[in-house]
């Protein structure tokens, strides 16, 4: 079983490669889009690299769900994610830290949930359930 630190180190190395960033830029709280400049194709690349690095299969939309709410008014109202939407998020991304987002659940801030720490936690969960 790999320790959290080992997983974090491997995730960091993967992101350095995939995003062409310096190691110093990688911090647990760094957001993939805002801090590390990831674009849509980068998310795919990260998924491919993580699959190879950790020998796991990452189903599409599991780690980086695309357009989570698809304009559903039950989930998003006036640009804010509703309580029901937050419940949905929690269910779809149990590995994401929603504490800060919940204080101001602006839909545009949803990409800030994708952090280095989130990926590390996701991988931890995947490895723990790996058969």
């Amino acid at each position, binding site marked *: 079983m790999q320790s959290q630190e080992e997983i974090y180190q491997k995730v960091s190395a993967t992101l350095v490669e995939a995003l*062409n960033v310096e190691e110093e830029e990688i911090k647990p709280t760094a957001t993939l889009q805002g801090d590390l400049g990831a*674009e*849509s*194709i*980068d998310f*795919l*690349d990260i998924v*491919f690299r993580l699959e190879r690095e950790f020998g796991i299969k990452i189903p599409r939309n599991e780690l980086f769900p695309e357009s989570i709410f698809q304009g559903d008014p039950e989930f998003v109202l006036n640009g804010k994610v509703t309580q029901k939407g937050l419940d949905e998020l929690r269910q779809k991304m149990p590995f994401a830290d929603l504490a800060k987002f919940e204080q101001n659940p602006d839909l545009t801030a949803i990409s800030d949930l994708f952090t280095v720490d989130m990926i590390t936690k996701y991988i931890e969960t995947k490895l723990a359930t790996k058969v």
Partner: protein
Amino acid sequence: MRLKDQVAIVTGGSRGIGRGIVKAFAAEGAKVAFIYKGSQAAADSLVAEVAQAGGIAKAHQCDVAKHDDALKVVEAVEAEWGSVQILVNNAGVIRDGLFVAMKEDEWNVVIQTNLGGTFNFCHALAMKLARQRKGRIINISSVAATHTNPGQTNYASSKGAINSFTRALAVELAGRGVTVNAIAPGFIETDMSENVRNKAGDLIKKMIPLKRLGQPDDIARAAVFLASADAAYITGQVLTVDGGLSLGAVAV
């Protein structure tokens, strides 16, 4: 040499425009893996011709319409020469005929070869080019995409789609330093245009402001430019190389 030590894949490389591109790329220092489907004699003669001129080219037999074939060719090229930097999707066929009489197969083979082949090779290479943060994709379109004659619904559709595909893929890959452009040739003297030229060659010449049919070299030079460092800031464009034909001058 503008493409020194780069590895290029050119589909439909043994004859016509593709052959011109293979020779031009090799003359500029690239190692060129070209794809041919059935013309083995032409492929062999091209390898020899390039070698004689001091260049490096290798022929790979493959049906570009088959996704798995494209993957295998890319793997074979990488195994021999390392990573690929340039892809030219040139393989194309015509099955001209009036739409009402067009057979389903005549539609399918044109779409699957021209558009499908472009998809297959881009699909096999795009992520690799993106990862190396360097790459050039050049799709060979046609003025027929925008200026059509009767009998080319299939061909015009495939080329119009290639133009759209070029722009759409350019947007996706730009962040990774990969450019995607197209060249739209006009009437070029190749086997493919022979029938039309025989029927209407003189008329066509009159319609071309530069007063001559194009040669494969005319397209090859444009391809070298788009593959070279000179074109680093150009992406998602369709470069028309047709002697002015598509300008639509009535009396020239």
